[in-house]
């Protein structure tokens, strides 16, 4: 993105942008000259030919190995991720993730507007965890300008974040099961997710991409009906989770498919910067909410679930346990939520933070999500860098997927819980 040249790099090519592009958009003073449709078509031809060359590479005549392009359109890549598989029969020799198909220049857009104008975008980076990403961005700016958050707003933030975590995990639960081959739990999970989305619609008005957090508070108060609904939701969710456990977690086929598949060792996870449930499943109890508490998470009683196996089943079990913990936090927050103002009226509308660098991270359902902000003292941010968990989590598949079956790769990818725009931003 900056056009840096690295000496002795084995494979230096465009990561997020198309192969043919010759510009470096994150450089200051970059101007993009729009191209005509004809231009695009011509460049696409080059790209398509390059694609087909890779996929139809015939290696030496007597060799058995071959390349398979998995994606960008494939039912189990959860969006537009492409995995270049080098295979021998059903066995994978090498995996090469090719990313950038969902690149939308989120970081560049942060530099273009002022601080207020970047509000709606974080929730679109990871659309499954919109509320939590909202908090990540708002928290960064709050740290930069130093603003107080009211008590009730803190509780609201915890409630919506945990609901969002539940919704995201439910979505993942279903999608993972669909990868493993059973379709029904996907729809059961979506039913529960719809309940949560209904609640979000009551507080924010949108179903998926929220803009509920404001600097110093929230957009609007949580209505009593929504709180009631959340209170009713908890026991229902608990009974459903028990059902799912019987349906899925105890099922012998599911266990055979996931146990011992895609083992991420602790060292490997730390080296690649894997965070979230994938790291905790490897036996490292790192959760931003616990180790670097933000908001009021240190006032609740909850545990960080871990597993020691590091395989797909471990990741699955950890995420399911996390759902139970989220319910536990929700129960406490819903009983203790105080009355009071939901935002800080002293919050400034236009502001110029002091020059400096700020970092704030939250625990998204997929891992540590942080926003690194450089301010140069003007109304617009100088640079917004997002540390998105999926980007680091995806890299590990190169090591983990090797010497596995094709079916296992799908399973590993599902268990890592990748959201593609979160990788590409």
């Amino acid at each position, binding site marked *: 993105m900056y056009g840096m040249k690295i000496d002795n790099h084995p494979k230096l090519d465009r990561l*997020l*942008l*198309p192969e043919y*592009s010759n*510009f470096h*958009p994150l450089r200051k003073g*970059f*101007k*993009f000259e729009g191209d005509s*449709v004809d231009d*695009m078509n011509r460049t*696409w031809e080059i*790209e*398509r030919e390059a694609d087909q060359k890779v996929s139809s590479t015939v290696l030496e005549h007597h060799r058995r190995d071959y390349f398979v392009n998995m994606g*960008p*359109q*494939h*039912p189990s890549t*959860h*969006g*537009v991720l492409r995995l270049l598989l080098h295979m021998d029969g059903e066995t994978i020799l090498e995996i090469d993730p090719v990313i*950038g*198909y*969902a*690149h*939308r*220049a989120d970081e*560049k*857009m942060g530099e*273009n507007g002022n601080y207020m104008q970047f509000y*709606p*975008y974080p929730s*679109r980076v990871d*659309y*499954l965890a919109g509320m939590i990403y909202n908090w990540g961005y708002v928290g960064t700016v709050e740290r930069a300008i130093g603003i107080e958050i009211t008590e009730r707003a803190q509780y609201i933030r915890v409630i919506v974040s945990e609901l969002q975590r539940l919704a995201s995990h439910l*979505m993942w639960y279903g999608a993972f099961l669909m990868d493993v081959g059973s379709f029904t739990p*996907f*729809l*059961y999970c*979506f*039913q529960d*997710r*719809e309940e949560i*989305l209904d609640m979000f619609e009551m507080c924010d008005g949108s*179903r*998926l*991409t929220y803009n509920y957090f404001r600097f110093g508070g929230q957009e609007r108060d949580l209505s009593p009906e929504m709180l009631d609904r959340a209170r009713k939701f908890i026991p229902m969710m608990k009974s459903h989770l028990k059902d799912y456990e019987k349906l899925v977690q105890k099922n012998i086929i599911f266990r055979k498919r996931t146990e011992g598949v895609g083992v991420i060792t602790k060292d490997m996870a730390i080296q690649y910067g894997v965070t979230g449930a994938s790291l905790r499943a490897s036996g490292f109890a790192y959760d931003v909410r616990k180790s670097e508490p933000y908001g009021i998470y240190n006032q609740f009683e909850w545990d960080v679930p871990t597993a020691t196996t590091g395989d797909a089943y471990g990741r699955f079990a950890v995420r399911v346990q996390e759902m139970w913990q989220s319910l536990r936090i929700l129960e406490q927050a819903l009983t203790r939520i105080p009355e009071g103002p939901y935002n800080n009226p002293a919050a400034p509308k236009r502001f110029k933070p002091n020059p400096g660098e700020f970092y704030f991270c939250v625990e998204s359902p997929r891992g540590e999500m942080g926003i690194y902000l450089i301010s140069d003292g003007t109304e617009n941010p100088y640079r917004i860098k997002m540390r998105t968990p999926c980007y680091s989590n995806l890299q590990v598949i190169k090591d983990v997927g090797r010497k596995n079956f094709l079916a296992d790769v799908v399973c590993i990818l599902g268990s890592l819980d990748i959201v593609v*725009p979160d990788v*590409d931003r």
Partner: protein
Amino acid sequence: MEMNVNPQQAAAHQKDGLMGVVFASLEKLLNIGRANSLWPLTFGLHCCAIEMMAASASRFDLDRFGAGVFRGSPRQADLMIVAGTVSRKMAPRIKMLYDQMPAPKYVIAMGGCAMWGGPYQYDGQYAIIEGVDRIVPADVHVPGCPPRPEGLIEGLLSSA
């Protein structure tokens, strides 16, 4: 896309007499069949893909209209729901997928991003294509960011 026969064909039918009537009603039958069995391609780009899944899930259940059979292979799909921003890197692949689909084929541009580039459109945007109809012809547009599943259903019905 439309159910009515176009004027030229209608004129031809009048000339042909009985055979024309037979063909016209055959065409009508085919159209009813096509309209009620639009199999979409499993093809999610961004946020709207989740709403597309929500539309196919239990609450809204696209299967009621015969559109619940999500096919992974473009060869067996009739309908491409472009759910999300079209990035420059993805665009040639979308065109390729569209070319691989057998006729008659339809495209729904779901969400602001697929219509105009949506919130991601700004002066100097280098990564996306402003509107999917710059590469493939879109038949129905469903606005919103993201549209609710009801919007998608409405779009599906209006495309039928």
